[in-house]
């Protein structure tokens, strides 16, 4: 899936807030990572791990104190590349309300393309496509405050989609949603990746959601603590505990069973998988 030139490269990124003052805080320290085209990457960590700061470097909302961030060949420090970078890497934020700007859904989705100065007919077409992709086309003329959290976030995703990005960053976009809303958003994100080939960077502290990604990067106190596939990362129960993170319950249960002598193999990530394995082990035909 990954191609020779990665979509986003982060080289030894360090970010310091309020440098030189008594409030100075080093949020990100010497972080290097890559986002490959079309991959679903989960970026996890507790509060204060630097994940949100890192996210904002991906579309040049923040600039590095040290190090470099390159988006599809464009350096985020280059002032001329700014708007092209923000077109390639779209971002959906945590608070569903505080990113919707218009009084009607379809007009909000049009906001991005309008900023790009596209002709009206093309904007209308993109808006319709985007709304259809996220499943909100029938709500196109509704007022945003009447929507549920999950619906608002889907509208926000549509707004980013209408700019034809290569990557969408979900900056804790599911944190404030109820379980139904979270499912909606994740389903939409996975569909984007599968159907449109758009890379997704999902920033979260919910390990169940991270388990659905291709790759997981764990941040702790501004540094990369763990990196790998979900199965690789969730193997080390103790380590994750020390990093103030939770495991998916199933992973925890697997660890517990292993300790008690039941050989659970690999790293089952959902109840179905674990149950199937246990049944096979004790000779029951599944």
């Amino acid at each position, binding site marked *: 899936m990954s191609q020779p030139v990665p979509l986003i490269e982060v080289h030894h990124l360090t970010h310091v807030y309020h440098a030189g003052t008594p409030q100075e805080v080093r949020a990100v320290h010497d972080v290097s990572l890559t986002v490959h085209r079309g991959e679903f990457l989960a970026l996890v960590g507790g509060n204060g791990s630097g994940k949100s700061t890192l996210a904002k470097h991906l579309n040049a909302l923040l600039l590095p104190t040290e190090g470099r961030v390159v988006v599809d060949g464009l350096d985020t420090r280059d002032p001329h590349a700014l708007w092209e970078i923000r*077109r390639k890497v779209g*971002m959906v934020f945590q608070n569903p309300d505080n990113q*919707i700007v218009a009084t009607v859904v379809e007009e909000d989705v049009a906001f991005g393309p309008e900023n*790009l100065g*596209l002709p009206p007919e093309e904007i209308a077409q993109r808006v319709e496509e985007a709304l259809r992709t996220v499943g909100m086309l029938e709500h196109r003329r509704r007022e945003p405050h009447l929507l549920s959290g999950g619906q608002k976030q889907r509208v926000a995703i549509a707004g980013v989609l209408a700019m034809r990005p290569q990557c969408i960053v979900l900056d804790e976009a599911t944190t404030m949603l109820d379980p139904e809303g979270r499912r909606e958003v994740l389903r939409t994100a996975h569909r984007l990746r599968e159907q449109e080939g758009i890379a997704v960077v999902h920033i979260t502290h919910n390990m169940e959601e991270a388990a659905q990604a291709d790759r997981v990067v764990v941040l702790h106190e501004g540094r990369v603590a763990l990196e790998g596939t979900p199965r690789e990362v969730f193997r080390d129960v103790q380590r994750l505990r020390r990093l103030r993170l939770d495991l998916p319950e199933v992973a925890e249960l697997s660890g517990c069973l292993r300790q008690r002598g039941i050989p659970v193999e690999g790293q089952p990530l959902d109840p179905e998988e674990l149950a199937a394995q246990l049944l096979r082990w004790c000779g029951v035909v599944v």
Partner: protein
Amino acid sequence: MRGDRAGAAGEPAVELLRSLTIGQYVPRASPVHRLDPRTKILATTVLMVVVFLARDFRGLGVFAAFLAGAVAISQVPAGFVLRGLRPIWFLLLLTLVLQVFFGGASGGTVLWRLGPFAATREGLVQGLFVTTRLVLLVVSTSLLTFTTSPVELADGMERLLNPFRRLGVPAHELAMMMTIALRFIPTLVEETEKIMKAQMARGADLDTGGPLRRARALVPILVPLFVSAFRRADELAVAMEARGYRGGEGRTRMKQLRYRARDLWAGLVVLGVGALVLWSGGL
């Protein structure tokens, strides 16, 4: 905010506010509704000037006939229109009374006396004239807001002011501000309700006491609301930038406002009415 007395903490008022669309807009499919908002804004401005140029009751009569017709075509119930006059009934009454007693030229035909004050016939005529003019003025502007949604008004104003950008008029910024404000009013109303309930749950009392006490009781509501509003503005600004916003330069709009034949006709009718009013008033 009726507090605990008749029900929940201002629940009916806040709920209703949240459910209704903001402003007096009455959605209908009338010819007036379908006019371009710019036409309506310009027409209303012209009408407001005309109503002040009318000299006598004939002029006002023409104007009133036209307005009655416009209201009828707009399918807005007459009851709504009349209810719109309720807030100013006191002003109308005051104006009338003042004119009756002080309006006529000195030495006019006295109708009756009230102590040192004399009500004259001329004053009465003048009073009725001025009051009628006020009523017609209010109804004209009401018709605008009844038939044009707040978003259309913002759009219309922006397009009208666009040519003046060269002279420093921030047309786009004003329109953006208005749209965002309209977008967030229901959200802020909801939040206010939530904050009110949270403080009431801690024993806050928003109903008792004199004006000073009640004002102070609003602090636990206003402070969190303001803090939250600033935070929203901040987050919204970042989100807008992330979607490529950099001001009005180079921006296009998906929705296009287009003048049509009906706008031309409407404009001609308004100008015609204006001319008629001025002519009958004997300019």
